[in-house]
């Protein structure tokens, strides 16, 4: 489950936030927010994706830049919602 989840999130980040012909690659521990791959405004679209995909509602106080900074952090966050 965790591997599937990891792949789902990584695939989404690659598709939506990385340029197609970029040579950059990401893994579960790549900083996303603090590196600027996903800026704080775009974080809302990542949060919306997770909410729609897993049918959950992430409260604003949990949707912090730190909680979204890596795919591992996101998976930890999703544990609170019994997704991960």
């Amino acid at each position, binding site marked *: 489950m965790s591997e599937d989840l990891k792949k789902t999130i990584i695939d989404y980040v690659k598709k*939506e936030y990385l*340029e*197609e*012909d*970029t*040579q*950059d690659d990401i893994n579960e521990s790549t900083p996303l*927010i*603090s*590196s*600027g791959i996903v*800026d*704080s*405004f*775009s974080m*809302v*679209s990542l949060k*919306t*994706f997770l*909410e*729609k995909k897993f049918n959950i509602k992430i409260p604003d106080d949990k949707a912090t*830049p*730190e909680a979204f*900074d890596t795919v591992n952090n996101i998976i930890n966050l999703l544990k609170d919602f019994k997704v991960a």
Partner: protein
Amino acid sequence: MGGITQPLFSAFGEEALFTRLEDAGTKAILTTKKHAAKVRRIKDRLPALERVIVVDGNEQNVKPGEIAFNMEKSDRLDRFKIEPCGPETPSVLHYTSGTTGKPKGAMHVHSAIIAQYLTAKWVLDITPDDIYWCTADPGWVTGTSYGIIGPWSNGVAQAVLDSGFNTEKWYQFIAQHKITVWYSAPTAIRLLMKDSTAAAKKHKLDSLRHLISVGEPLNAEAVIWSEQAFGKPFHDSYWQTETGAIVITNFPGMKIKPGSMGKPFPGITATVVDLKTFEPLSKRGTVGLIALKPGWPSMFRAYWANKEMYESKFNKDWYICGDRASIDADGYFWFVGRDDDVINTAGHLVGPFEIESALLEHEAVAESAAIGKPDPVNMEVVKAFVALKPGHEPSGDLELNIMNFIRKKLSPLAMPQEIEFVDSLPKTRSGKIMRRLLRAKEWGEEIGDVSTLEND
């Protein structure tokens, strides 16, 4: 070289880039590998664009017609022929958003450096002994006026952090480089506030000597909090892309009234004028439009190829800033709000027209309106109201799809943080969408005169 510099925000999507490059007739663009793909997708639509230079590129990863320029490996020049220029020679072209139409290019001239030098010296209080950090992105006017020209002309050492916002990282950066003067923005300060005073106290931040803020009004709570967290208050400063440099501000040593933007900079004649007659308001505390007497060195000299719009910004010998404020008995200015529909999100102005035009290009969107909705951190964020074409139904997936569509086309700042699907939008009898009505509802304000409303 005699060219005009046009700074661009690296997170701009291809349509936002195209609009600005096409309007300016830009001849050459310097970019990096990371952003070159966006330029490639619009290059064929830009006949004036002669050169694309990829500064971190090499022969293998640039496309035919592009120039790979590796700064580290290139020869240094001993001499460089400088193109003669005078005080009124155009220097920088910054695009800024308005309520209607496309973004406009505010053109500045070389003599603007006089204002940028003096304000950096007297307001930011930078000296050759300081280590200065301006957190603004160089794609916006603060990043140019006070991230480059102001500090360079004052000969101050600067620290630059190329990363997104992160409380720990920011405090570590201040401690590591012993930052003394810090110029930041209310959104960042409010994010730091969210992470509590204790987070600041964990780091050795006693190098900080002077703190200044810009981009949107700095709320009183943030001023008071910064005194607790850093032992000194953030000083609010006010200016715009069009003013080129700080025009109203809290100076070092001046008594700060938390929540006030301060007083005019020496040489700047500023007042508030009546909303209708544009006459200065003599009664203190009355809300009017902030107005400046033209003639300061960093005032914009034109909107690129848009004389009519430029002239519309002046009335009765005043430059009208487009912001509402009042002046108290001590001469301090107090910001009230924008006088138009422009959205100020995290200190960046976003034009509703640009967002609405892009929304209409989405296959499911029949009509749309974009407004700013209140946000505790960013002051405002974009909210879009969307009526769908027949055959399309509102859904979470469609909302996400539209959000990403705007993010990639324009920029993350312009991406609606919320989309409300509606059957139709309130319009005047002449068919103009009444954003004012949608905004008033969102902010819980009086709706006002709706006599021209076509549908309920």
